[in-house]
């Protein structure tokens, strides 16, 4: 029945949007890190995993309400990011991409093994509050309450990020530092501090994304490795010079992935990889990026 098809298409579309928003929150920290510090941090997913596991532990073992865990996850992982930036990452900004890749792979391996040791290798399940479980009927289309929550929350986050980037002084300093760090520091902008704050913030967002995503994406020790390529696709397709680029890329990716897995179950997974390669071949700087001075 065509009506059924339309409804399931809408459901898929909505699911894809939710998935995409989630990817956006997860990946935008990586986009900024890459654009700002020119640093390839393949361990970005490990921060997301940290947020996810932290939330699982807090809700499961200590009964802290899910909604309260979200800001806790953000802050805690942001702090973790700040510490690591100061202690380790800072020394690697000037090294080549190969070194950075090797380093971040090393961090991922350590994180994956450590989490496996501490929490076991099974999937973790999140205790969601009652009002987020179940479905809501909107114009005959069944929408998951949790997915709706994610879409709304992530949209608000995206708007907030856009406002910070475009409307605040910090945002303009950040954009200046991204465009040309040397000139920016020549203008008196404390590039070091911006790097630290941005890295921490990006990691915090990843942690928040991990907490939000545990229910939809699944959470186990291999999370950083599984989703590494997705973050990279978002960043390579969306570019690193804006908020809207990665947002659009994430939405496209989310919808394509969900639709692909539904309509062509066998091919769904690697359509994404092919799209990424195609984009990189045609426009190495990303579909939505404006040219930068680098």
């Amino acid at each position, binding site marked *: 029945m065509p009506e059924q098809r339309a409804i399931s298409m809408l459901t898929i579309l909505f699911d894809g949007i939710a998935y995409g928003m989630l990817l956006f929150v997860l990946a935008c920290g990586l986009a900024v890190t*890459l654009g700002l510090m020119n640093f*390839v941090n393949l361990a970005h997913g490990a921060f997301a995993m940290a947020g996810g596991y932290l939330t699982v532990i807090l809700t499961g073992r200590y009964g802290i309400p899910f909604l309260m865990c979200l800001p806790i996850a953000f802050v805690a992982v942001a702090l973790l990011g700040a510490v690591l930036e100061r202690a*380790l990452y800072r*020394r*690697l900004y000037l*090294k*080549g*991409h*190969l*070194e*950075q*890749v*090797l*380093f971040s*792979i*090393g*961090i*991922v*391996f*350590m*994180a*994956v*093994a*450590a989490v*496996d*040791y501490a929490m076991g290798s099974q999937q973790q399940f999140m205790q969601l509050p009652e009002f987020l479980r179940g479905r809501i009927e909107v114009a005959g289309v069944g929408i998951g309450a949790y997915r709706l929550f994610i879409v709304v929350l992530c949209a608000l986050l995206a708007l907030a990020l856009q406002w910070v980037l475009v409307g605040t002084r910090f945002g303009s300093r950040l954009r200046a530092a991204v465009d040309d760090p040397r000139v920016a520091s020549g203008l008196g902008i404390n590039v070091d501090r911006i790097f630290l704050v941005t890295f921490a913030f990006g990691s915090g967002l990843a942690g928040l994304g991990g907490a939000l995503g545990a229910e939809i994406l699944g959470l186990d020790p291999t999370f950083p*490795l599984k989703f590494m*390529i997705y973050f*990279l696709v978002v960043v*390579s397709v969306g570019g690193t010079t804006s908020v809207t680029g990665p947002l659009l890329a994430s939405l496209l990716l989310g919808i394509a992935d969900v639709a692909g897995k539904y309509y062509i179950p*066998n*091919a769904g*997974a*690697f359509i994404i*990889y*092919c799209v*990424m*390669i195609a984009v*990189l*071949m045609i426009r*190495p700087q990303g579909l939505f990026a404006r040219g930068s001075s680098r």
Partner: protein
Amino acid sequence: MITPPNHSAIIEAVAASFTHATRWRALEAAFWLLPLAAVLVFPRHYLLLNEIAILGLFALSLDLVLGYAGIVSLGHAALFGFGAYGAALFAKHIHADPLLGLAVAIAAAAALGLVTSVLVLRGSDLTRLMVTLGISLILYEIANQLRWLTGGADGLQGVVMKPLLGAFEFDLSGRTAYLYSLVVLFASFLVARRVVHAPFGLSLQALRDNRLRASAVGVPVNFRLTAIYTLAAAMAGAAGALLAQTTGFASLDVLAFHRSAEVLLVLVIGGAGYLYGGLIGAALFALMHDRISALTPQYWQFWIGLILVLIVLIGRERLVRPWTWIAAARAAQRTARTR
């Protein structure tokens, strides 16, 4: 035209430099005696030695691409795994002769390398990282999906090889396997050695150091890079084939990301750009793996990660060629003294 008195002296000096660069050192000969000596000294460790030989060949192929041509690849396992599956499938369905299967796997991997080299030529290092990673993930997914062909997650079992050259059975001790892998490794090494000392190899190093200037000197960039990538793909495919043939088994693991990461680590440990780095690194890595796995089998990944982090923080050069550290320190002392 009067030939200045030292003109022929300079020609001789130039010729001598080149001869010096290509001559086999005593140290090299000694190095190649070690794997043979191992046969006598470690007769019960053939499996481990075989692993080292295969990993060494894999790392050697990456050295050509990364150390000599400067192509950063995060998906070298794609070529390794393609060769492994190629050899396994050929043995299982067509003919189980090892050398024939090796040839088929080499051809298949080279073809894959040739086709994907197009994607590796363009863009920055970062683009190449992502593209090579993407290729290996695509291949992994394809192998995963084609369960009827590859055995999916369970892998392709029951690959039984005919005797090598009709005479040497693949025995349980692994001796035939090891010597087979060693011979293939040595042959590949000889080819690689020839290539890097030839004009082609020189042009690769120029491409690595300064692609713009290399093309301004007349080097056809894309042809040369495609050629070396294809050659390296053939070698990586050979390594994969050896694995499948000597273990009688091929699974998705041969295409997994951790294999690409591990071969990078191996090359970094041993040092890229002088051909022996991959071999030395392979030996060290396999021995480490053996020791650490005996102690903490599941958490081997943690230790690799730690080693990677430490290597990068301390610095590849200093760790791998400590004499460069000493030389740099001496140079710094000299400049300090002349001030």
